């Protein structure tokens, strides 16, 4: 029997080997990648020394894409095929997106997540985001000179399950091993707290390009405990630009602009907004393609006035988060400002007034999230040093529930529960002989299901026929440290196990991802993939061998349906093993492992009872 290598928790098996891990801030306006070098978190830059990469993707006519700074010019010359602020579309349907009328894109109104029609065909927000992530991955690999062990990707704390799934899918599609999805304000708190050795209760006010989060954290001896979080996933710097853009349309007396002119006006609006941070008034001058001319002057006072409702809107989540944490503004020791939009003076003033203290702005609000993510990534791969122990205890932002009679949501996991968390709820049948039950999983605080986000619908079949109210259906919700939900249901009263696992389906299915990966790998084909593939092939052989032996020995423990399911998965894996698609193979291995889990348990039980049969207690 071979000895197993056992590593102490918190230490890697090979303590001197530094593993390469990165943190990625996938932002609405800009994205960044950071890593920990010699114990210090640093942002990685491009060849020109720039840390920020504009979150812009241009699909070129005739093939090929341009990204980041290279795609900036195409925003005006080719607005339909140049996607900005794609984060606002992640995990979202058409109806969820604000200001859609001012966007130059051609949307496809399909159920579920929206898609954009580009010159290179239909693209989902996941695919577009994956292009950005891939570019950051390549930057990191070039800069670190090696294979990445994994990445922490940040998401707004108030992202729901669909938006999180979509982000995770995009990272997988970009060939990243996702160590953790980390909430942006929590990442910022880590960077801030570890830098300043802070203790006490802090608020993180994170106003990005397209999202707003407010998290309340308690920092005690290396533990970052999120007490509550709230936010608005469609409120950000973009909305301030949009207000100014609308103001210009109202005041400049021009015809409704073309897509190109609209983009031009929006970009000018952003530039003017940024200038107003430092100056009292700024000219808004632009010659449009239509031949019309815009010549206005925007004063700081006018800009503050027109965007005051937006500033006010940030205070709603602040109040709610404080109430959930049972705290008042006085209890907050410091307010950490994150996100480029917090540079606006009237935001800073509103925060200062509400909390009765000047906010903390000593960290670069653009970089702090990526730096915190890098620190977390470094810790997760086991690189942390002896005296460098800290822990994040994060929460789920929105309650999870099931639809009950009358279209009401019954909350199973309340918002702000510390992760990971699992909750079970029992249901019963309401008709005699009922053999199936359907469930509808929703997320949100509202009472009516119609006002919550629908995450998944699934059916539990194979309930043994019984009188109404006798069957006991146990539904278990589990939310992991990424804030991602899985649901399982089983009938418990008869010992007959009808069990099902669902992943909310609003994102992509595993098959879709595998398909996308296949097509993206066609362009890659490098050594890394080859090695990963070989490892997967060895694992597949091992698993197939183990399954064959187990089925030969204890195959009768399975009923026909179970046996057929396992046989099908074995056949599929056999088929995949000689191929060269590491991801499909890995999916195949995972599927077979999952499917044989309960078989393994039953074998174990049989082995135990065989060992016990024929012996009395004294003998044992």
């Amino acid at each position, binding site marked *: 029997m071979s000895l197993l290598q056992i590593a102490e928790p918190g230490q890697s098996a090979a303590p001197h080997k530094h593993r390469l891990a990165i943190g990625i801030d996938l932002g609405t306006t800009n994205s960044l990648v950071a890593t920990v070098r010699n114990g210090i978190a640093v942002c990685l830059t491009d060849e020109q020394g720039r840390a920020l990469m504009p979150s812009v993707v241009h699909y070129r006519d005739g093939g090929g894409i341009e990204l980041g700074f290279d795609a900036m010019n195409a925003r005006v010359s080719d607005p339909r095929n140049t996607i900005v602020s794609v984060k606002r579309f992640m995990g979202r349907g058409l109806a969820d997106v604000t200001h859609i009328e001012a966007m130059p894109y051609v949307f496809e109104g399909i159920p579920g997540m929206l898609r954009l029609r580009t010159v290179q065909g239909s693209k989902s927000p996941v695919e577009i985001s994956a292009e950005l992530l891939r570019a950051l991955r390549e930057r990191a690999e070039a800069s670190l000179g090696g294979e990445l062990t994994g990445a922490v990707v940040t998401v707004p704390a108030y992202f729901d399950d669909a938006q999180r799934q979509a982000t995770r899918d995009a990272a997988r599609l970009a060939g990243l091993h996702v160590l*953790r999805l980390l909430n942006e304000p929590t990442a910022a708190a880590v960077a801030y707290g570890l830098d300043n050795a802070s203790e006490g209760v802090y608020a993180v006010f994170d106003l990005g390009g397209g999202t707003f989060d407010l998290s309340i954290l308690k920092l005690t001896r290396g533990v970052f405990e999120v007490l509550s979080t709230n936010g608005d996933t469609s409120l950000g710097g973009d909305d301030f630009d949009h207000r100014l853009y609308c103001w210009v349309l109202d005041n400049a007396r021009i015809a409704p602009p073309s897509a190109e002119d609209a983009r031009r006006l929006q970009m000018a609006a952003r530039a003017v907004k940024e200038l107003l941070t430092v100056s009292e008034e700024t000219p808004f001058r632009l010659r449009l393609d239509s031949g019309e001319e815009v010549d206005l002057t925007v004063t700081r006072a006018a800009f503050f006035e027109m965007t005051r409702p937006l500033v006010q809107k940030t205070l709603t989540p602040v109040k709610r988060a404080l109430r*959930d944490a049972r705290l008042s503004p006085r209890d907050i020791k410091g307010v950490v400002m994150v996100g480029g939009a917090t540079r606006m003076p009237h935001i800073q003033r509103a925060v200062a007034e509400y909390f009765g203290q000047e906010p903390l702005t000593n960290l670069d609000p653009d970089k702090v999230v990526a730096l915190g993510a890098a620190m977390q990534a470094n810790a*997760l791969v086991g690189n942390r040093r002896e005296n460098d122990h800290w822990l994040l205890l994060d929460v789920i932002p929105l309650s999870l529930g099931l639809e009950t009679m009358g279209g009401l949501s019954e909350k199973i996991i309340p918002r702000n529960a510390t992760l990971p968390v699992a909750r079970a709820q029992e249901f019963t049948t309401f008709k005699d002989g009922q053999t199936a039950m359907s469930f509808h999983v929703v997320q949100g605080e509202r009472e009516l299901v119609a006002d919550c986000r629908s995450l998944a619908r699934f059916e539990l079949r194979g309930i043994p026929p019984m009188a109404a109210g006798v069957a006991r259906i146990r539904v278990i919700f589990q939310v992991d440290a990424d804030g991602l939900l899985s649901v399982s249901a089983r009938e418990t009263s008869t010992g007959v196990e009808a069990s099902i696992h669902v992943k909310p389906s609003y994102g992509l299915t595993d098959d879709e991802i595998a398909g996308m990966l296949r097509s993206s790998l066609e362009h890659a084909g490098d050594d890394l993939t080859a090695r990963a593939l070989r490892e997967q092939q060895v694992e597949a052989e091992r698993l197939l061998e183990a399954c064959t032996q187990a089925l030969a020995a204890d195959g009768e423990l399975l009923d026909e349906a179970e046996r057929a399911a396992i046989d099908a998965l074995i056949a599929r894996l056999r088929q995949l093993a000689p191929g060269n698609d590491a991801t499909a193979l890995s999916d195949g291995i995972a599927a077979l492992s999952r499917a044989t889990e309960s078989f393994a348990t039953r074998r174990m039980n049989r082995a135990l009872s065989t060992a016990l049969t024929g012996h009395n207690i004294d003998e044992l």
Partner: protein
Amino acid sequence: MSVDLSLDYFSLFGLPCRFRLDETALDRAWHALQTETHPDCHAHLPENAQRAAMQEALRINEAYITLKKSVTRARYLLELAGMSPDAINENVVAPEYLFEQLEWREAVQEAREANDVDTLEQLALRLQIQMAGVVTQLAGQLDEQRDLEAAADTVRRLMFLDKLRLGIDNALAALDD
């Protein structure tokens, strides 16, 4: 590193099995256990080790939530003492409480309809004071008198006040905008 999952919640955190709680001690013990079991501390280990740790982390969080709140802690103590959850839930409300409940509900409803934040906040404060009194009473019944029946009554009352608190919170949240 492994945690004995067969322990009751109090023993899990090394706390005495009683209603009165040293919250700081609970928080510390929770943090210490999480440092060993949280998925983040196992992310670099093989998948089966991660899964085992996940089970422990889930149980520890469940235990923490249960003990942290007075209502759930009291319920848990009653269950440990052998009372069934159904018996605890059984809704026999004393008439004097029934009247009290109606009064509270009407007051909240009225303030809500009038969009009256100040009144709602005053109600929340009054409720908080009343709940503190009920919790003190409960502590006596559970820790000294060991009168489970009386304690179950008080737990039901506290459950009602808790629900009311949630109602006030929701009313206030609706008026935040």
